[in-house]
């Protein structure tokens, strides 16, 4: 199963994947598209990814969490157009006890944010757009372009979804 998907995320399916009779605790996380960012009203947004590397990093992160907490971990990240309230990332981590389940779940979301090459373009209610840059004051890139940007040239397979 790929970690990236354009389909709506289904936490129940991830929970079912990690549930087992020996695992008494399941911690989950959903990251949901908010309607505001930096005081501005967000209408929708689009996640794009460097897909081959994003898949590899997700696989590494899940393997690290499994090994460190003897947990079973399921992870999905959505790409493409998302609406307010849609889940962008879903994680389920099951372990014999809840300490390990919470720790594994928290590790996965932190590492996804830190390491997985995914980018987010916000479309604001006023019609402008901008790339989200969590490292910048205010949260947008210096390279933010407040207009509709042309699509990348067709045939460039490495361009993200």
């Amino acid at each position, binding site marked *: 199963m790929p970690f990236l998907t354009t389909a709506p995320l289904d936490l129940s399916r991830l929970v079912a994947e990690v549930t087992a009779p020996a695992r008494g605790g399941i911690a989950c996380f959903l990251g949901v598209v908010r309607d505001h960012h930096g005081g501005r009203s967000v209408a929708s947004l689009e996640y794009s990814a460097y897909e081959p590397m994003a898949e590899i990093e997700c696989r590494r992160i899940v393997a690290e969490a499994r090994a460190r907490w003897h947990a079973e971990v399921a992870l999905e990240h959505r790409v493409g157009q998302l609406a307010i309230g849609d889940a962008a990332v879903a994680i389920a981590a099951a372990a014999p006890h809840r300490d390990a389940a919470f720790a594994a779940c928290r590790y996965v979301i932190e590492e996804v944010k830190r390491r997985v090459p995914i980018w987010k373009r916000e479309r604001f209610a006023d019609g402008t757009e901008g790339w989200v840059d969590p490292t910048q004051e205010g949260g947008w890139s210096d390279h933010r372009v407040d207009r509709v940007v042309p699509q*990348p040239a067709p045939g460039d397979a490495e361009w993200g979804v």
Partner: protein
Amino acid sequence: MGVSVPTTVCVRALLFASYAEVVGRGAVTLTLTAPATVRSALWELRRLPGGERLPERPLVAVNHTHAALDTPLSPNDEVAILPPLAGG
């Protein structure tokens, strides 16, 4: 008979999100002087029109793995210049 030492390294450079916008393209084939590093690839990218807006020390990856600016590049490597990540 001497061993032939290649004097150039040909790599594929990828740009994403805001960095692809400022340069106007998502992929560039670069021919670098050997020995090549991520830094020398970035140097070439910053010479492209709009490339001066790329930062001097961006996140980078080589062959789908996070790397450093002094990571060496081999022929046909895929070097990616990554804007600040915003997943999750």
